[in-house]
């Protein structure tokens, strides 16, 4: 493939680093070239964090051009809208986990919280497909990233990347009990 761009967004503390690293390795296991970068810097939680992943031989910079990502993956609702506005190309796909970590403006009651309808409306304008992910009975919120990974796998949203590529990637990065729990959650959703 010439180029397939994936923009990942979330809030510091949501585990976007592991998500992005797993996706990169899964793409690598599928035999395709991948480059990317996490755009974090500091330790504190709660700021916007993003990660760029670029698949294919036609990608050079690790940073994706604005409004040209094929796929935006977000772990939080506000960041899903921001990611779509800033990076998704017209006709692209947005997948987001519907967690809400309100930004300061909402907490200071200056603006309203983003609603799922707002995301739908913006997606319609961009002719983008939207997949909202939410798991009612998820015991540990730190596993939202694995759930969204499983949805990506199930819907085959990254061309050429199959289920076994994701699990191989997870096994590279985790071990012991943590790996077990994550693989189980992944299998449950990915089917």
């Amino acid at each position, binding site marked *: 493939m010439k180029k397939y761009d994936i923009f990942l967004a979330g809030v510091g503390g949501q585990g976007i680093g592991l998500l992005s690293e797993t996706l990169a390795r899964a793409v690598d296991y599928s035999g395709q070239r*991948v480059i990317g970068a996490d755009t974090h810097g500091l330790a504190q939680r709660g700021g916007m964090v993003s990660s760029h992943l670029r698949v294919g031989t036609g990608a050079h910079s690790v940073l994706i051009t604005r409004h040209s990502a094929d796929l935006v993956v977000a772990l939080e609702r506000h960041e899903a809208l921001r990611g779509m506005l800033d990076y998704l190309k017209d006709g692209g796909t947005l997948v987001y986990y519907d967690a809400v*970590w309100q930004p300061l403006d909402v907490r200071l009651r200056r603006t309203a919280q983003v609603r799922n309808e707002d995301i739908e409306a913006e997606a319609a304008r961009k002719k983008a497909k939207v997949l909202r992910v939410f798991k009612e009975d998820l015991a540990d919120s730190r596993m939202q990233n694995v759930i969204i990974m499983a949805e990506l796998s199930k819907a085959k949203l990254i061309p050429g990347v199959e289920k076994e590529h994701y699990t191989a990637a997870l096994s590279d990065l985790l071990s012991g009990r943590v790996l077990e729990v994550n693989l189980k959650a992944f299998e449950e959703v990915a089917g």
Partner: protein
Amino acid sequence: MKSMGEMLLSTGGGSEIVIGNTAIVRAMLEAGVRVATSYPGSPTPEIASAIASIPRERNPMYFEFSVNEKVATEVAFGASINGHLSCVFFKSVGLNVAADTFVQLSMMELIGGMVIVLGDDPGANSSQNEQDNRHYAHLSYTPVFEPATPSEVYVMFKQAADLSRKLRMPVIVRLSTHVCHAKEKVYFGPMPVHEHGNKPLFCMENGPYIPIAADALKMKRRTLHKFWELKDLLEELPVNIVEDNSSERGVITAGAPYLSLMDVLEEVEDKPDVMKLGIVHPLPKNRILQFLKAHKEVKILEELDDVLEREIKAFAYDNGLTTRILGKGDLEDWIGEYTPDKVREVLSKCWPDTFKPVKEPDSPVKLNARPAQMCPGCGHRSAFHAIKLALKDTDITVADIGCHTLGYLEPYRVGQVLLCMGHSTGTAAGLSMFNDSRRVVAFLGDSTFFHAGLPGIVNAVFNKHNLTLIIMENGTTAMTGHQDHPAVGRNFNDVSQKIPVRQVLEGLGVSNIREIDTYNQAGLKEYVEAALEEEGFKVIIARHPCMLKFTREMRKKGKKLPRPVRVGEKCNLKYVCVGQFACPSYQIADGGRVWVQEDLCIGDRSCVQTCPSQAIEPVE
């Protein structure tokens, strides 16, 4: 699970997906670096994380986090003149701290070799400016390699180490944020066998090493000799890439902007020829002249300042070339990271026929930024909440660098001026002069206290300044990923002697010292009020361990965190918890009710005391 440490040590080499900061550690080991030093600063701290992944007993390289970048540079220098290949790495502005030492290095015979790895930060992602450190290289006659990808980082570090050893001079490998953090698959060669000796090779005959009087000029002459010799050598090094698209137009570029350019060129028909420089100082003059001669117009595409441009224009002038050289245009060309978007914009200004600027689609939706904030339960939040209640609107607050810098953000607004690491006491002293009406409060973190904070404190005692200094002690270098500092009792490698902040202050002659845990908000408020009424130099140590570090350690040990809090029935919507104390766990529901996001709350209960209606209660 794959082990990073094993990958870094593997004798056979192999390939792995790594970031630039990891690739450079493999290169250090292959090159035979014996001593590496640093002070933590983004974008480089992951270099140390990669070093930490190597089992201590199998790591042939000594590493330390020194107290600041200047000391780190000196330790690496000392090792080098004793015959060991050494490496020091730190962030862009770290070079300002190290500068006094750094500018001398090229005058010295570095018999072991020494590589300085800089993490520049175009775009000021995590720094107070986006300074272009190539200027320092010019000022000190130091060669600079500029890799664009993790693979190039790996290769160029080894080339830099070779060159440094051969010429016995310092060599810079200049990275930037998205080279440090870029990831790709890198192919590593086999690990050479190094016979490291323990014989100290320092010898005066290699000198002179004392740049005093006539020797200073003699040493400068020797430096320039080497530098001239180097210019010829570099013409032949295979570090430059030329892409021929048979165009009358050319672009000369280097580093990460080259990759952005390649992205932009994917979309245009009329591609200019491209010359990518691997070493940006000194420049391969003959190669550049050749490229200029072969083109009608050449654009110098460089991030930050016009360093290449000025030199290349001088080459052209000296050689009477008529090639039109397009340098920086308007001032926007000097600002920000050269991402693909930025490069398209820059090129559209000089060749509008080929390059079109990106059109931002207009959307009715506008979202405000979500800047970093202090973590749930952070002791600094309790401190700012209490201190703010003790301050008058007219008081002047001086911030310093660390997590507590975030106090300048809403809703706290504590900290109104910031220069750099450790500036606060000095700046506050100046602000207190000819000033009888506005009280001055300075802030300082504990790692920064040791890094660059001490001279300002000694000066305040020595010159009897009138100000209050609040040391925000969280027991770690939090912002850059929780590195230990001298008051912790542990260094990168080992248990070490604790150097408590209070004892240091007492030793420096500070007599007015108060200490308190920041979760005791009423007590802290009282202390600040009292200190502000007193004359002279007053210090308050406002202490609470970094809660992010603490919760991580608890989880690692498999310990349960306390239950989150919740907002009970007594709540009558005063919004102090969410609007003033502003722990990010507090959320606003439709209709204005306040609730606690349990995924965020760490159950530390520092917020309970802030509620005027006593409505915050633990979840049973």
